[in-house]
């Protein structure tokens, strides 16, 4: 699998936009197709290594989920980006496709409050269970008090 072949395969999927430019291959995916496209990338392009999953808070435009997967044998990397839309915090889970996504989606839920549909065990991973709010959102006030220790 080469970089050009991966670009050709991905651009044939309807709804998927492949960005121009240098590697890694950046793919804009509709949120509801995310799991299906990830499965295609894993099976066909051979990206078996799940590097990371995070999110971006675009304020008025809502949240964007970013996942980075690698084909370590052929050196092909793919960035999956899915915009959730304003006010939407629901996203399909990749944990069924990549087992490595399990904890990263928990962290993403912890920090951004994105609810990954179909995740086996979606609860906070880094912060305490009784934490209020999701601190990496832009709307989270930095000096939010956390009694009794602040």
């Amino acid at each position, binding site marked *: 699998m080469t970089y050009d072949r991966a670009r050709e395969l991905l651009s044939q999927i309807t709804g998927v936009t492949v960005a121009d430019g240098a590697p890694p291959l950046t793919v804009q995916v509709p949120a509801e197709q995310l799991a299906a496209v990830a499965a295609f990338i894993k099976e066909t392009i051979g990206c078996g290594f799940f590097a990371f999953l995070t999110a971006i808070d675009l304020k008025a435009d809502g949240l964007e989920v970013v996942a980075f997967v690698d084909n370590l044998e052929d050196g092909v990397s793919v960035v999956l980006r899915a915009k959730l839309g304003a006010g939407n915090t629901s996203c399909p889970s990749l944990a069924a496709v990549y087992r490595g996504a399990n904890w990263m989606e928990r962290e993403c839920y912890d920090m951004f409050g994105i609810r990954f549909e179909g995740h086996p065990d979606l609860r906070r991973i880094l912060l*305490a269970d009784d934490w209020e709010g999701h*601190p990496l959102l832009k709307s989270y006030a930095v000096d939010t008090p956390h009694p009794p220790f*602040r």
Partner: protein
Amino acid sequence: MEIKPPVPQIPAPVWKDIKDLQEWQELHKSRPATGDKHSSLFEQVTDGIHAFPGGFAVTTVADNFLNWARKSSVWPVSFGLACCAIEMMATFASRFDVERLGMVPWASPRHSDLMIVSGTVTIKMAPMLQRIYDQMPDPKWALSMGSCANSGGPFRHGYHVVKGVDRVIPVDVYVPGCPPPPESLLNGLLLLQEQISTFRRTGRRAAPNEKVD
């Protein structure tokens, strides 16, 4: 000739505007005095001896002797939180050898006199830190090591860090630095020994140290 507009200056912080410092003050006003709950009978007896004519000679000599014994064997509980713990370990090791001061890093809080809070205290960690401190027998002391434990340090305006360990436990000596080198920590330990030598009663803070306060 073109006149450049003045460079905008960042205004100096005003105490009234710093919300978390205000809350810190309130917290310290409302914190109840914590002390040894088992020594009230002992205190009554010693107060009686002290009030007796000539009894002060017995109590002050006994105090001086006990304080000499206390300051000569301060056992810090080995409790490392962050990168400051590396410097703390260097202080405990052979080059800076704190055993010549009578200190033995001990692995149990139940046998220790001193807690060196070496590093960042997160809000999730603070209850555990308080529990370890509560397990130590009175009289006990706490030393806050490094910027993070003193005030939150670079993470002060983050969301997850306690803004100074003195919001969790009472602190006797603050050692500045990020991280403090072993020499700084040794200086802090020597200041703590001076404080212990003027120690009078469990649960009350020592007299102000002229060198630092």
